[in-house]
């Protein structure tokens, strides 16, 4: 069975979402993963989107491109202001938050602001949006992105969104009392963070991927203990659901 990187990411991420939870999702892969989870094992998962909607239900073939357009609000239960959507997060109501990023470091710090020095950037990226807020307030953060060496760097050029910062106690010292980055999902692997060092470690490999593939595509040391298992491939039903949701393949690639 063949599938694209986006399909693989959406399926892998969806499997991490438990039923009856509340997920702060973005458009693209996070939304596909959340809707897939709702359709399969998590019918009571509630989606929250940044533009200001709680509990929307997506229409197949009419996925939103942005979280603040009316497609994203379809059948929503509440349409709070954007500030209020984030204040619910700060109050502690959301279980999961999704993040992507141009750069991710071993502590799960994420950069979506600058490549190069901030005062003379080589690339000015679009900025935080809600990423910094999501990583600061949601209970468990899932980073979902493609696995590239230039993306997985030892030190991000700029901390837009604080992961574990410089390791144990880092978030606490900064005043971040709640939430943490728990998983990193890529097209090559599933990773988590060693509680002792709060650095990224390898948990599992995607189907057909070898340990060396992952290490070649990672700009920092990525420890693993024992035999690293492989994740099951996306199922036929998973792919059928995703392809029904996004028939024009705007997000599936």
């Amino acid at each position: 069975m063949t599938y694209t990187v986006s399909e693989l990411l959406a399926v892998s991420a969806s499997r991490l979402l438990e039923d009856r939870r509340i997920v702060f999702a973005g458009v693209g892969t996070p939304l596909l993963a959340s809707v897939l989870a709702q359709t399969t094992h998590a019918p009571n998962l509630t989606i929250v989107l940044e533009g200001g909607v709680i509990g929307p239900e997506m229409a197949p073939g009419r996925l939103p491109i942005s979280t603040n357009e009316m497609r994203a609000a379809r059948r929503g239960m509440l349409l709070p202001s954007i500030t209020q959507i984030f204040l619910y997060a700060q109050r502690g109501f959301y279980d999961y938050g999704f993040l992507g990023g141009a750069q991710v470091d071993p502590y799960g710090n994420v950069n979506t602001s600058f490549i190069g020095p901030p005062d003379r950037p080589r690339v000015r990226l679009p900025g935080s949006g809600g990423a910094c807020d999501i990583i600061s307030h949601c209970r468990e953060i899932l980073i979902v992105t493609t696995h590239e060496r230039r993306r997985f760097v030892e030190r991000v050029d700029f901390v837009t969104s604080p992961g574990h910062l410089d390791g144990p106690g880092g978030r606490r010292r900064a005043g971040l009392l709640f939430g943490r980055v728990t998983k990193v999902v890529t097209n090559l692997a599933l990773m988590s963070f060693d509680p002792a060092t709060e650095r990224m470690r390898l948990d599992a490999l995607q189907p057909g991927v070898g340990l060396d593939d992952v290490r070649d595509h990672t700009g920092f040391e990525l420890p693993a203990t024992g035999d690293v298992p492989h994740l099951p491939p996306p199922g036929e039903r998973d792919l059928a659901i995703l392809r029904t949701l996004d028939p024009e393949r705007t997000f599936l690639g």
Partner: protein
Amino acid sequence: MSGASFVEARRRVESKDRSRRDKRMPVERAAELVRDGDHIAIGGCLYSRTPWVTLRELLRQRRRDLTLSRNLLCYEGELFMVAGAARGIVTSWAGIGLPWGLSRIVREFVESGRVHFDEWSHLALGLRYRAAAMGIPFLPTLSMLGSDLLARAGARTMICPFTGERLCLVPALFPDVALLHVHRADPFGNAQIDGYPHMDADLAVAAATVIVSAEEIVDPEDLRRHADRTIIPFFAVDAVIEAPYGAYPHECYGLYEADLAHIDAYARGVASGGADAVHRYLDDYVYGPETFDAYLERFGLSRLLERRRAAQELSR
């Protein structure tokens, strides 16, 4: 905005005409309330309820040295940069939308230092407007702590005097002018928004001057019957513009979906042609059409109606 600005902002509210009067006027006159150098806060979010009718007129009147703030800045920011109308942006994110990748124009103007990009987290910017809407100089939050945004943006931290925990403080942002596009308003400026409220209600009371454009101007009696739905009070509003399709080609919740084909064509044009493509767009859609009606005619009636049908289908 200086630390003392909340005092000055209060004085500006006290000194403006807050009377309940007919504030309807053509967009040409409303736009004259905006001065060169002003900080303009833009309502809506990305390509939703963007006040295009008023933004277009500011470009036509060749305002200069503006600072634009918006929660998520769409390509209206690019038009102001290329037109030489903006010297700075205050936002959490600047681009067009996910499928279109990085904005070539934002990159060019910000990387070369021609435009200053003042980045805040989305909530932090919302709380800056909220603090201003409350008439106070700052608000505390747990956002931006530990990030490099905190110091770069000029936020501060303090130890909470009650709990001993560290907090991030964000300064109130008092815009000179807020531009808001709403579903309906009465001639006094009382206004209602359907669907997403975004941050408009805070902008309306944070800004010194407020220009409201509305899809429909209604009798004040109509609003009194549904007063619970009115989120913008007349005393904050200085100008009311009647503007059906006033957010087009962006969406107005429930009334018309965004013209994504148009946005896509713009984005592709800019991706290949850079600032030249934006200049052509300005000629075609801003400087060329003399009235907003003439501007809408560029898109064509069938397109406008088709986008309306799409919105109605979604609302079912």
